[in-house]
């Protein structure tokens, strides 16, 4: 088949545009690892004045001795994510340091309201008397602002689930569409970022203890691993627009990736042949 010159031009532009899009995606993808900025544990259902705002452990699941516990986590994203980004994947990493035997599903739910972290320190898994401003089973901020529902105000549908064993080590939630949607929403509207609540099977003895942000070893504290890219993707609006954009890209490399803790090295920008 013989192609006319205009056809060749269009094919070349299409190939180039495709290459450009792939290259741009590769060059613009970023990874940032965000340390937890606030965490706490709710102890329920009766010990409604107990909290663990400054303790080294985060608890979820239930025991016979202490009943259900729920962990709260929030990650401040504004310092780690540039404005106008597209979230590609999200993973939460928690380090398990103690657990009841057995594998239990622990679910992450998006929190719908703000909550507090103050100075209570639990000696074990039972909690300590809440300090003013701590989140408790009954209060988002003890003892001035109550949750709408005891045990925390959160989205009913989980954003992610993970099976947590009793073997100490790192456990991951995500990436899931739910986590990506949560973080995307928080990136777009930081004022809605209240973090997640981690809930275990509260009918069994499913208790798990994770390192909190006050944990002794910095590397074992909760982390959020986010892959993102600039929000404006390469799209072909018209042939003349594509030509114009291609010629611009050939001479103007992408900006350097934003540095961040744990961010992966970005590939060098490539020139694209026309």
């Amino acid at each position, binding site marked *: 088949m013989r192609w006319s010159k205009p056809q060749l031009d269009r094919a070349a532009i299409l190939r180039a545009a495709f290459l450009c899009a792939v290259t741009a995606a590769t060059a613009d993808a970023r990874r940032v690892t965000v340390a937890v900025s606030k965490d706490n544990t709710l102890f329920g259902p009766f*010990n409604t004045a107990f909290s663990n705002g400054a303790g080294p452990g985060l608890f979820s699941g239930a025991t*016979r*001795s202490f009943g259900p516990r729920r962990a709260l986590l929030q990650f401040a994203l504004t310092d780690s994510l540039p404005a106008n980004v597209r979230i590609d994947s999200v993973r939460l990493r928690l380090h398990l340091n103690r657990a009841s035997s057995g594998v239990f599903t622990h679910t992450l739910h998006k929190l719908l309201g703000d909550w507090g972290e103050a100075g209570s320190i639990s*000696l*074990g898994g*039972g909690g300590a008397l809440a300090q003013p401003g701590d989140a408790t089973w009954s209060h988002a901020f003890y003892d001035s602002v109550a949750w709408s529902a005891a045990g925390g105000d959160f989205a009913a549908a989980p954003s992610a689930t993970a099976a947590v064993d009793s073997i100490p080590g790192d456990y991951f939630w995500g990436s899931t569409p739910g986590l990506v949607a949560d973080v995307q929403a928080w990136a777009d509207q930081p004022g809605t970022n209240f973090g997640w609540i981690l809930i275990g099977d509260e009918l069994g003895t499913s208790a798990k203890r994770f390192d909190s942000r006050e944990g002794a070893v910095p590397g074992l504290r909760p982390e959020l691993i986010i892959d993102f890219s600039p929000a404006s993707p390469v799209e072909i609006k018209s042939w003349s627009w594509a030509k114009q954009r291609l010629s611009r890209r050939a001479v103007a490399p992408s900006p350097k990736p934003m540095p961040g803790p744990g961010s992966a090295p970005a590939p060098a920008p490539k020139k694209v042949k026309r």
Partner: protein
Amino acid sequence: MTSRTMRRAIALFLPLVLLPPPARAAAKPSSQIAWGGGGTADGQFDRPRDVAVDGNGRVFVADTFNDRIQVFDGNGAFLFKFGTTGSGPGQLHEPYGISISRDGSVLVADTGNHRVERFDPQGQFLATWGERGTAPGDFEDPVGIAGGLGGTVYVTDRALHRVQKFTAAGQFVRAWGSEGAAAGEFRWPWGIDIDEAGHVYVADAANHRVQQFDFDGQFERAWGSLGTMPGQFMQPLGLAVGLHHEIFVVDQLNARVQQFAAGSDTPALVWGTPGAEPGQFQSPFGIAVDQSGAIFVANSGNHRIEKFGGAVAVTPAAWGALKAKYR
């Protein structure tokens, strides 16, 4: 005053002057021996939740997460063990409570199997009763157990917020309690013990108080509230009646033991701090007192049993009796 009167007065008061002061000034019990350590070998524990002492001074330990009972002499020397993981007769699944009945048999709250088991003093299986459920005689989370007068057995059920009373043969007699904070209601009833007069004492854990009943469950009194001051509790769990009717309460989240004279809301003694050193507690649960007055605590988070002694057990009743002796 005649010399005869003077001599009588001296005879009356001199012994009181020479005797040690009453309870408030009594020395706190000191840690004498601790044994255990985390593990599965004989003499090691995995979070022991309760302890009991028989008439021969042998110490029975509910080695809860090893699904067994271990038996020691009063100085912590391992004697024997019984129970293996499972749900068959004589097997155990996370036993939280243990008590010695008045006939010397061993009562176990086999929590994970939702039942009670009875063993002879050598650990031979004798009987079992109960199954999972909410009907009279059923259990969800039996955690505390005590042998009462006439061989009766009292069992607390954490999840169902009630106490059940059985005959020595395991026949259901009555139940009392439901979830709540009013008199006679419970939130996580846990440790239980019965004194010689038949009073039933229950550690009402999540109401942060102790409740006292008569032998049939009629409410008599309650004391304690949430807090860290003496006389307040943060999740009281273990409970034992001492030789002089004093009540020992394991105040778990305050990592201490409080000792009350019968009828008193104010502790005569408070001891213990958080930690792993001798005399310190981490997530303590059960408590027992032997016939010499030595106190044994299931120091669960430290995976050990700790024996305390040296307390002067002077109660108002004993003090009154002492004074009466010299009248």
